[in-house]
């Protein structure tokens, strides 16, 4: 009988144990990744699925290093990325921060200066000489290379050859001209065709920015922070040119991107002076094939100004968080040293990189039927080399907000010097 009680107790024990054990499931699975441990997953943030995200995907495919990690690509709106970076970096926490982030060149310096320790220097990882000079200026800070230059914002003047012809011009007549000459052409074109020469958005001084970069000038001094508005002759010249275009009534005023694209897609304007990234949008209007050409950007009528400028463009940055070695390794083995990847980017996405070695590839020499057989990628690549390097500094957009109002005053008849001085003092007060 004793045996029975023993057995009973044993069974009871088993039941009790079984009931207890079901409660405590695996705990402590997620070990926090403090310290510089290697990780098996890195994340990358970028905006624009058709362009930057697509480029990242291509890079993932093209990766030929021997790191064993996964790359997670997360799409965010550019404004969100900026906001999240600012929030995260200013609070000093690295939690939820990506390993790789895309930052627009105009904003890069402000991040690098505000959070110098938050970024992982790539000086020893990539060779600066491999990339266009002007990109290196915007992606480095205090002698350290932080960004891996990505797409070129090299600008060109897209022109409607048929409208020019109607007004009695050829493509040669608009090649390597000054802005003043451009305005003259615009007047003739409007006379002959009734079409405006270009679109202008009163909230966006992109035209002015492109103009002043042709002469190697910017809103700020070389130091990147001192506003350089009052007494900036190049800027004054840009303002004057802008006003002239308005006065001569050769510009169609638009208020947003859809109207901007809509204007040239519907044949309302004769030219589009902007960054090369507009090419896919231009080609959207398939019926205009053969009617377009791309020529170098007009320059300001000043000594030293060149027919090459830039608009936009961005670069990859590695944040100083766990996984930075992997992130740097990923960038080096893709955008940093793989000419074939750039061929793919040009072919499949239309993205022109700033990696010099890539320009020799076949994809760059392709003749584009839409542009009557012009080798536009080759042309853009050449112009890229000529873009005057400027330090975009910290406050591009802040100063532009001030200048937008100033421009309006100037257009309405205020004295230019006065306007710029006002802007200067306002900027100095605001950006202290």
């Amino acid at each position, binding site marked *: 009988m004793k045996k029975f009680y023993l057995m009973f107790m044993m069974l009871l024990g088993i039941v009790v144990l079984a009931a207890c054990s079901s409660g405590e499931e695996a705990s402590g699975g997620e070990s926090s990744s403090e310290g510089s441990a290697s990780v098996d997953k890195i994340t990358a943030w970028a905006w624009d699925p058709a362009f930057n995200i697509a480029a990242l995907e291509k890079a993932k495919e093209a990766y030929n290093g021997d790191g064993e990690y996964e790359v997670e690509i997360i799409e965010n709106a550019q404004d969100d990325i900026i906001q999240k970076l600012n929030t995260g970096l200013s609070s000093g926490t690295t939690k939820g921060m990506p390993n790789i982030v895309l930052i627009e060149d105009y904003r890069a310096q402000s991040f690098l200066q505000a959070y110098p320790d938050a970024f992982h220097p790539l000086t020893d990882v990539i060779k600066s000489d491999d990339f266009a000079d002007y990109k290196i200026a915007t992606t480095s800070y205090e002698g350290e290379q932080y960004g891996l230059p990505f797409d070129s914002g090299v600008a060109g003047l897209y022109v409607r050859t048929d409208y020019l012809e109607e007004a009695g011009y050829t493509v040669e007549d608009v090649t390597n001209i000054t802005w003043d000459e451009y305005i003259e052409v615009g007047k003739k074109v409007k006379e002959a065709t009734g079409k405006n020469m270009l679109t202008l958005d009163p909230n966006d001084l992109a035209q002015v920015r492109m103009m002043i970069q042709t002469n190697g000038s910017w809103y700020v001094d070389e130091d990147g922070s001192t506003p350089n508005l009052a007494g900036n002759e190049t800027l004054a010249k840009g303002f004057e040119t802008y006003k002239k275009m308005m006065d001569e009534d050769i510009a169609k005023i638009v*208020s947003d991107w859809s109207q901007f694209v809509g204007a040239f897609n519907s044949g309302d304007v004769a030219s589009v002076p902007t960054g090369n990234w507009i090419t896919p949008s231009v080609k959207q209007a398939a019926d205009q094939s053969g009617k377009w050409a791309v020529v170098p950007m007009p320059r300001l009528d000043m000594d030293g100004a060149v027919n090459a400028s830039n608009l936009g463009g961005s670069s990859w940055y590695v944040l100083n968080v766990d996984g930075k070695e992997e992130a740097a390794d990923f960038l080096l083995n893709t955008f940093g040293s793989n000419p074939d990847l750039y061929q793919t980017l040009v072919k499949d996405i239309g993205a022109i990189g700033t990696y010099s070695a890539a320009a020799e590839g076949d994809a760059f020499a392709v003749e584009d039927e839409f542009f009557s057989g012009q080798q536009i990628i080759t042309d853009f690549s050449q112009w890229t080399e000529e873009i005057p390097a400027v330090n975009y500094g910290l406050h591009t957009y802040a100063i532009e907000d001030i200048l937008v109002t100033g421009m309006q005053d100037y257009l309405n008849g205020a004295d230019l010097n006065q306007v710029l001085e006002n802007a200067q003092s306002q900027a100095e007060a605001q950006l202290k």
Partner: protein
Amino acid sequence: MNTKKRIIQSLKDNNLFIKMFLIMVISIVAVSLLITFSSIRVSSNLFMDTFSITNTKVLSQIKTRFESYSFAIVSATHEVQNNGTIKRVLTQEDENSIETSGSYLNIIRQMERIYPTVESYEANMIVLGENERLFNMNYSNWPVSWGGLKNHSITQHTISEPSKLQYHFISSTSFTDKPMIVATKALMERSSGEIYGVLYFPIREEQLKAFYEGYTSKENEVLLINEAGKIVSSNKEEMIGVDAIDVLNLAKEVEEEELEFKDVNVFDTEYMLMSEYLPTYNMYLVNLVDKNVVMDNLVNTKEIIMISLGIVLIAVLIVFLISRRMTNSISTLVKQISTIAKHDFNKPVTETGGYEARKIANAFNFMLNELQDYVGIVVQAQQKQRNAELSALQHQINPHFLYNTLASVKFMVQQGKKEKATDMIHALISLLQNALSNIDQTITVEQEIKELKNYVLINQARYGDRIRVNYFISPECLDYHLPKLILQPFIENAFFHAFNEKKEGFIQILVALKDGRLVCEIVDNGDGMEMKGNYMKEDFKEKRHLFSGIGVRNVHERIQLLYGEEYGVEMTSAKGEGTRVKVELPPQKVQVASGT
């Protein structure tokens, strides 16, 4: 047939166990079933009640969020409507580029001032006017062109009801693949009633979702259904844009009847439905809780059932073993007892099993022993009585016999046959000696034969020797013992009754060992008789006999009493054929006191 019988037999044997076990099992199972189900029921009811209360609270909290968004939109709409700059820019006719540029800048400045009201909800703000005037505060949110928006059905709807703030659902546009909810309002000149523009507040569904997503889970769904029955927003991506009129009707019902919740069956699932009406949106906020999944998560039915199943199994096992043990011993006991009743009283039952069974077995054995003692006493008493009877009979030597024998001796002496008379007297003395000695004692076969010979001598002396007696004694038997006066009555019978018709013949006496028994046969070739009825019953009483009371029946009973039922006397006879008497005895070599 045989197996069936065996099964029935084993069922019968295990009757007690089966009954007990079945009752126990049924009660255990019933109790655990009842407890399991009632506990599941009680806990799920309790949970559902609390759940519905919390979810109703959550719903009203979500409602507050929706309302605050709609309030933001209303106030932004108000500001846009009352803004002179916006109105002027939208209404004024073509001007030169500088003026246009100025007005565009101004309107953007005005809108930028108002925009933050809704920007915090990540909503966009678009103003549409004539002359391709389109001001989009967040182009990437909705990259729509002037023409696209102008001809959009939501614009038509808005213009047709200019005084109303409307909410539209756009499942997927040609510009973006993300569903949106657009609040629209026509901008109308109050005095003239002229519509000078349309105001849009598009918010992506995923942003709207943020209002409630934190409260949801896989089994706790929130749907926003517009008055057309279309699901406008849901935490379940695949539900967005689905028509769900039935859910809308149920939601209306819940709202009208002011129910806390309602159990419904939609999308092929059992749900608990809670609902809130959002008057500003003219939409219903519906909370669907998948009861089964929630229950599964909360009350782990499987685990409970497994536990009770385990308990039942263990209990049944224990009950099985214990009751088996208990009843087994009782059953064995019963079996043993019933066998004993049939066959053997001497064998005690084995004392095994539980305490009770052992006690019973003990008591039974005790009783059996007592019984045996009494039986022994009875048997002894009977034997004693029989022996007493026998010795009494033995001592009653028939006076006629004595008289006849002595008369014969007298004649012999008279006739001068001295020697013959002497032999006769010797034989008589020997007979008397034997008869007078202790009846209890056994004698050897040899002695018995001697006595028989004496008896035969006397008889032949008296009645002549027309009846011859032959002895066939196996030499090995001579030493065996047998009780006194076993064979003598049969010889006597043969002498006096077998030869009434036939005047002469012979009697043969055979003694041999056969199959481990001592077999004595007395065979005559006399008259024989009909074997009718119980021939042993009747005793012949005659003067010629040596003893007046010892009969055939007496012998048979005596043997059985002494040695058991397997021994005894067997008699076969037929008319004219003679009689054969067979006496079977156990072979005993030593003097045994027969009866004590």
